[in-house]
Structure formats: C-alpha cells, structure tokens
C-alpha cells in the first residue's frame, strides 16, 4: 500500500478497498514511527488529518470524489495553511499560525487531499541540504548519515520514506529537483507563473515556483492538475486555459529530440552520476528518441547571477520579519533599532543572514548597477541560450545534481561548495522554464536524478516523456533499504 502510486491509491479508494481514514491512519503511523529518526516534519496534526480524511470519505460517499480525494499529503512548511503553524523552518516564525491558506493549499484541499503535516525545509528555503532549518536537520532515508538535499528536503525525505505518497515543494534554484534527485523521487518545477505564489512565503519572488513531489511522473501530473491555475491574488500568475498535464502520458517517444548541453557533462560531474545519466539517455534512444548536442554557453554565469538576484529579492522580502506585528521579537531591547537588530539577529539563522547581507550589499547605492543590473542582463542571456537550444531539440536532459547525496556537515562550512550543488538547476529558474528530476539509477548505492528541462509551458510533454521512461524502468519504484 505504501508504495502505490497516486492513481493506484485513488483506485483503491474508489473501489472501497480502503477508506481515506484507514489510509491516513496508515501513513500517520509510519510518520510516528519514522519521523523521530528522519525529522522530515515540523508539524503533524493527527486530529486535523483524520478530520479531513473523514470529510474525504463522506465526499466519496456522496459521489463527489476526484482522482486525489482522500489521499494523504504533506505541505512544505513554506505554504501558509490556515490554523496550522507555518514556520518556514525559522525561529522567526516558530509560533506563527497562519490565518489563511495559500492558493496551492486551497487547490489541493479542494481536490480532497488530506493534509497530514508540514514538512521540514531549509530556513526560508535557503539551502541545498536541509541543514539550515531551525527545527533541525533532515536525514536522507537512503542513509541517515547523508543529507536529503534542499530546500524541500523534508518533503523529499517524507515521500522517500513512504511517510506520505506525495508532497508539495518549492523551487527557487533547484529546491524541488535537487532533493528529488538525492532521495530518488520525481519532482517538477513548473513554468514560472503556473502555480500561484499567493500564500507561499517568498524567498526570491521572481524565481520561486511551487511544484509537486512524488514517486512518479504520473503522480506529479495528477498533482499539478490540482495545484496549477490562475489566481488573481498573484500578479505574476498566468491566466491560461486549464490544462490536463496528464494528457501526453501515453505519447510514444519516437522522434523526440533530446538536447544534451555540453556544459552539463563537463568537469565537476561525478563519474557515477555521469554513467547513470548516460544509461538513461541510452534508454530514451531505445524508446525512439534521438539525442542532439546543444550548447548553453552562459551556463557558467548562472550560479553567480543567481546569487545576486535571489539574495537581493530575499533581503527585501524578509524585511517584513521585523518583530513588530508577528513573529519573533527579542525579549529585551532598548530602542526601536535595538528591537529590530535583536529580533532579527535571534530570529534568523546564519545562512539567512548571509543572504540578507549579500542582497543588501548588491542593492546598495553604487553597487546596484555593477551587480543587480548585470545579473539581470545575464538572466536574459541565459534565457536566450535556452531559446536557441530549443531550436534544435524538444527537451533538454542532463544530471540534476553533480553528485549523489553527500554526508551531513560535508559542505555546511563552505557556502560556495553548497551553492554549486545547484549548478544545473538554477538556470531553469533564471529563465522561468519548467524543470524536473526523475530517478535514473544509482551511484554508490545512492539515487541519481536525471533533469529534464522543457520550453515554457511544456510540462505535459516533459511529464509524458518521463512517464514513458518510467514505464520501462524501475528506478522510481526503488525504496530506501529497510522499509
């Protein structure tokens, strides 16, 4: 039961083989047993979860169930959830109970999914290892001495350990795809603007995008169908016709042109990861796809440009956490300025402070043109690179991360080494493109992720392509040892 896909779970619920209450109890029991070891959740609310599952069962009895009704779900703790503590894994919001639901939360609730808990994450989504959480590090279910990736590390660990069948994530520079890769999952960052950012606590507004994390492409398609949609409360939400993201799942791959950016297979890529990705590409060729060499010449500028733009936006977005209206306020302070300084010094962890400082610096008078304006120009160049590449291919593939999961603490003292973990994923955010990661094998017994990047709004094709691969491979069904 715990390894079933969303559509299999949906079928079991529809056939009455199991009720939502039973299914929810099953996963709650797994959370109770495994979470103390993994620390994937910040909040779990059994009563609310069971209440929601009873409502889902009632809805099914009334004949109003949809494909996801009654299936348990976890939200990354970056999504505001009415009546739930919503912490963003920060001391700053340790006791913040949201008075409203994020759009994505509303959408999945409307689909009838049962929220069991809020998952751990890097503080304010800043990190690639889930080691910056105020609520403690998350461990990788494949090996609890390793990181699960980040920032959606709690969601990834929870699904990988089969504590929930699916979860939401957010991806600003790879925060869905990289943990999906490191935990052997499928995760999709949609085109910027597909999922509303309303109620998703902002890290870097022009890069943040919500997306599904699950075991398979098909699961992600079903989730995205529920999550996506125009929302007037987010000015960057796109008003597009409703789309069925599962519509191309059955599409054969014959003739599909897969672009392989030479920059993604260069120095810095682990040999084992390289080999697993190569094997996956061979599988795609067997399924009828052709691979073509393409170039993304400005790839090397993605990480530096990102580490100007994302901190710049973050430094401003996080200004609202000032201890005045909600959130952490220092117990003792002198004047107003002292209240700000102490509250923020106590409320934010070191990585968040580092990025606020970087962002404040790059926006400062005299530096703005040299950093922020230049970074925005690079951003356009990177988007142009992809446009040019997509003249020669339908989708781009490569490794999601340069290596498999690394040991806890291995990179936490070297921010640049940590930032380089997102070297392949950041460009999609800068260009607003959809990107996903699917499991494509193992290196040193740890999952390897294959990244697929598509043109804007081509999620359905990406999901279809991944699904065809998953019909012919078992990597996405592999479970961490000991489950």
């Amino acid at each position, binding site marked *: 039961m715990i390894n079933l896909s969303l559509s299999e779970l949906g079928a079991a619920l529809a056939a009455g083989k199991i009720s939502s209450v039973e299914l929810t109890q099953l996963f709650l029991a797994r959370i109770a047993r495994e979470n103390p070891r993994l620390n994937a959740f910040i909040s779990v609310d059994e009563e609310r979860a069971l209440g929601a599952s009873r409502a889902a069962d009632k809805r099914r009895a009334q004949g109003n169930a949809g494909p996801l009704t009654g299936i348990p779900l976890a939200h990354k703790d970056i999504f505001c959830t009415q009546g739930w503590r919503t912490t963003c894994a920060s001391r700053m919001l340790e006791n913040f109970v949201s008075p409203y639901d994020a759009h994505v939360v509303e959408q999945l609730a409307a689909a009838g999914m049962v929220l069991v808990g809020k998952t751990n994450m890097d503080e304010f989504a800043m990190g690639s290892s889930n080691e910056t959480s105020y609520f403690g590090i998350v461990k990788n279910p494949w090996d609890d001495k390793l990181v699960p990736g980040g920032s959606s590390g709690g969601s990834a660990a929870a699904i990988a350990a089969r504590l929930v069948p699916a979860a939401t994530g957010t991806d600003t520079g790879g925060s869905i795809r990289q943990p999906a890769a490191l935990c052997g999952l499928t995760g999709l960052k949609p085109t910027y603007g597909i999922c509303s950012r309303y109620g998703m606590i902002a890290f870097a507004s022009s890069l943040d995008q919500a997306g599904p994390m699950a075991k398979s492409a098909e699961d992600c398609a079903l989730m995205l169908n529920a999550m996506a949609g125009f929302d007037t409360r987010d000015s960057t939400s796109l008003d597009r016709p409703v789309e069925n993201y599962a519509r191309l799942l059955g599409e054969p791959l014959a003739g599909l042109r897969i672009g392989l950016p030479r920059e993604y297979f260069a120095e810095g890529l682990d040999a084992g990861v390289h080999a697993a990705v190569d094997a996956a590409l061979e599988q795609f060729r067997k399924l009828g796809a052709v691979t073509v060499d393409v170039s993304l010449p400005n790839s090397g500028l993605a990480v530096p440009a990102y580490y100007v733009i994302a901190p710049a936006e973050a*430094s401003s977005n996080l200004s609202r956490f000032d201890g005045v209206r909600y959130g952490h306020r220092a117990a003792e302070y002198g004047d107003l300025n002292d209240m700000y300084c102490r509250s923020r010094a106590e409320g934010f962890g070191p990585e968040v402070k580092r990025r606020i400082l970087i962002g404040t610096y790059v926006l400062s008078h005299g530096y703005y043109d040299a950093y922020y304006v230049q970074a925005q120009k690079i951003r356009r160049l990177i988007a142009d690179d992809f446009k040019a590449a997509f003249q020669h291919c339908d989708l781009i593939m490569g490794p999601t991360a340069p290596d498999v999961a690394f040991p806890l603490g291995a990179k936490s003292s070297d921010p640049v080494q940590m930032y380089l973990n997102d070297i392949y994923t950041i460009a999609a955010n800068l260009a607003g493109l959809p990107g996903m990661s699917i499991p494509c094998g193992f290196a040193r017994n740890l999952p390897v992720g294959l990244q697929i990047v598509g043109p804007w709004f081509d999620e359905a094709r990406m999901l279809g392509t991944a699904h065809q691969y998953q019909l012919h491979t078992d990597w996405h069904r592999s479970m961490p040892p000991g489950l």
Partner: protein
Amino acid sequence: MQWEVVIGLETHAQLATESKIFSGAATAFGAAPNVQACGVDIALPGVLPVLNRKAVDCAIRFGLAVGGDIAPRSVFARKNYFYPDLPKGYQISQYEAPVVSGGSLSIRIGQGSDAQEKTVRLTRAHLEEDAGKSLHEDFQGKSGIDLNRAGTPLLEIVSEPDMRSSAEAVAYARALHALVRWIGICDGNMQEGSFRCDANVSVRPKGASEFGTRREIKNLNSFRFLQQAIDYEVQWQIGVLEDGGKIQQATVLFNPDTGETRAMRSKEDAHDYRYFPDPDLLPLVIAPAWKDQVQAAMPELPDAMRERFGRDYGLSAYDAATLTATLDLARYFESCVAAAGRELAKPCANWVMVDLAARLNRAELDIAQSPISAVQLAGLVRRVGDGTISNAIGKKVFDALCNGEGADADAIIEAQGLRQVNDAGAIEALVDAAIAGNPKSVEEFRAGKEKAFQALVGQVMKASKGKANPQQVNELLRKKLQG
C-alpha cells in the same frame, strides 16, 4: 547682495479610490485603528500586491490634465527601509520609470485683476502606497501603530524648481489642489492629509546660473504653513550665507508653533533605499485605448473653461478665473446661465461671485450646499433683467429664496408684492409728494448740492417701499427740480 529664491514642490495627493492601491481594503478616513488593514496591508507572510486599476485611472487622468506623457510602460519599485508603520519593510513606489513625465500647470500669483500668470513645469508624477501611522502619545512610553492608511494610493507630483517666492509656491500648490479636485482624483482634504507638500528650497545670488544647495521641508499640510515655512527657511538660508556659512543639504521639519524649520537629518545620514523593481508586480502597461477611455471621461479642464467663459459669456479674465475656482462652482454658474439665458451671463456671474459667495462664506458652506439652486438664482436674475424688480429688491428676493420663503423668485415677488412700479403717473405722484414734503432738500439741491438729490430719490424709493423704478424716479425728479 540680492538673493533669488528657488523652490520646487513634491506633492502627495491621496487618490480618491474606494480601496487601496495593492489590496481590497477600504480607504475611508477615520475608522478605528487597524480595522481597514487586510493581510496584504499588514504584510503577512506570503501575501502579494495586486494593482488597483482605479488608481492608474487617476494617474492617467492627471497626466492628461497637465499635458504630460503617459508612459506606455512604467515600473513599480521597492523603496526599502525599516519603520514600524511600514509593514513590508519597503514601500512600493515608482522610481526610474514613473507613470507620468513632464506636463505643466499655469498658476496665478496675487489677487484680483492684477494677478500675474506663470507656467510651472512638472518633472513627473508617480504612483505609490502610503505608510501607516505611528502614534507616540497615549501609550505610556510605547508607540501605537495604525495601519489603516498603509497601502492608500498616492500620486506623488514633482515640480521643476520653477518657483521664485513663497507666493508662487502657494499659488502652485493652490492650482494643483484645485486641479486634482477638479478632475476628481483627490478630495483635497488637507486636515486629513489627503494633500500634502514637501518644499525644496534654495537661494542663490541674483543672476547666478547654478542652483544653491537645497533643504527639503517635509510634510506641509496647509497653504499657510507652506508660506510660513518657506519664508522662514529662505531668511534662515540667506542669514547663513551672508554670515559666510554654507548650506548643508538636509531634510527639515516645520514647527507651526514656533514658525521655524529644524533639520531632521543631513545628507550623510540619508537612507540608502536600495530601490529595485518589485518582482511581485509586472510592469504597468498602458495601451492607447486605456488612455482614450480616461480622456473620454475627463471633465473640461479649468484653463479651457476659463477661456470659453471669456469667449462665450464675455466675462473678464478675473471673473472667469473666479468662477472656475472649483468644478462645482463652474457647474453652478453654467447651470444658472443656462436657465437665465446667455445674455444674462454677466449678471449671473455677479450674483454668484458677490451675493452668493458672501452668503456661502458667512454660513461656511460649500457651493454644493448652496441654499439657493442655480435655477432659482437664474429666475431671480431674469426678473431683475426684465425690470420686474430692481436690483435692490433683487437682493431681498435673494435672501428670501435662501431662507426658503418661496419656491422661486416669481412666487416671492407675487407673495410679497415686490413688483417694480413702472407706472409714470404713480411715480409722478410720489415725486411730487417728495418735493412738497422736503423743501429743505429741494433748496439745497438748487444751491448745487448733488447729495440732496440722492436724499430726495431715497424719499421716493422709501415711499414706494423700494418698488418704484429707480431710473424713472431719477429722470422725473431731475426734470421736475430743474423744470
């Protein structure tokens, strides 16, 4: 040394929208603290701004009214600083790409018919949100925060440094105040802060081409304070320069109690606002059709109306300017003329400017609250015009109409028997009686005292209860006395 004063004004006009510029909360003045502040206004985590198109309508309307350029694409930027009444830690404003550029305003300096005309050029006008209010009294050493005003739409209107005296600055502020009310984008209520000015003031030796160093006087919310503050500041700056000192660029506050300006912060401790384009808002795109739509709904502007009053009604420049002080007044006058007939435009103007103005002034009423309607006044003007009543009786009828003693002038004239006596025989009898009854006056008149003639006219008018046709009385009396 002869000094020249240079003044530029930055004016914040609160736009007359029902809801805030980036949220749906109401903007009405005077509500209990914090009841008109929604999640967006208090900057909850995850909330996002959505632009109120009505505020943009107002900006376009203003741009068109002053002959400025409406930017086809303008950008909202974040102005970052910490203050408890600024919930997000930044103000959404426009910085490098404002919605309106250029334009001008013609002003009249001085009173009456010898007022001088001058054109003040505008630099720009941009949209932004207001902050909340900090209340430092009544909280036992703490500060209260009221966020009702946070997010209220403002149009910041920046003039070129074209004014050369406090009188010009006040004339500009008055003209701008009249215009924003005229085009209906601001209620102009200065006590409530709907219209407030910052004055940039510098002095330079007469004939110099370079500007002196300026100091900015913040937040002047009455025309009187504007005048007083500038006058004080100019004397202060001249004093410093004549003593061999230098002016340091600074922001200063005006204290109405002392009549003095006092430096608030110098250039050195000026904020670095770290402006950058707000990634939560798309650029504001104004297509020609939107401009056309606003133009179509635009009332005739005061300059055009003044010119038309001169052309169509033969009014003097002074009369035309007086009658176009506000749109309500101009509309009242035009309704009056429409009912009275165009040939009576000048007497209509006189009645409105003299009798009605005095009455309203005494009762502290606005033209919209006039106790006599434009049609009622027109009826009165017609009866004076066609000789039914004299001008003096007209004033009685005017008072009677204002006091609600009758539905229209005719009814009052009939009911109170005020019709003018034009019967030559009846007048002759009264004239004879006056001559017979006042031999002393007759004697004085014959001795050359013109004043005695007026006394005799007065006797006749008194005997007729004011109803005798004064012209006939004059003629007949003179004829009889000289005959």
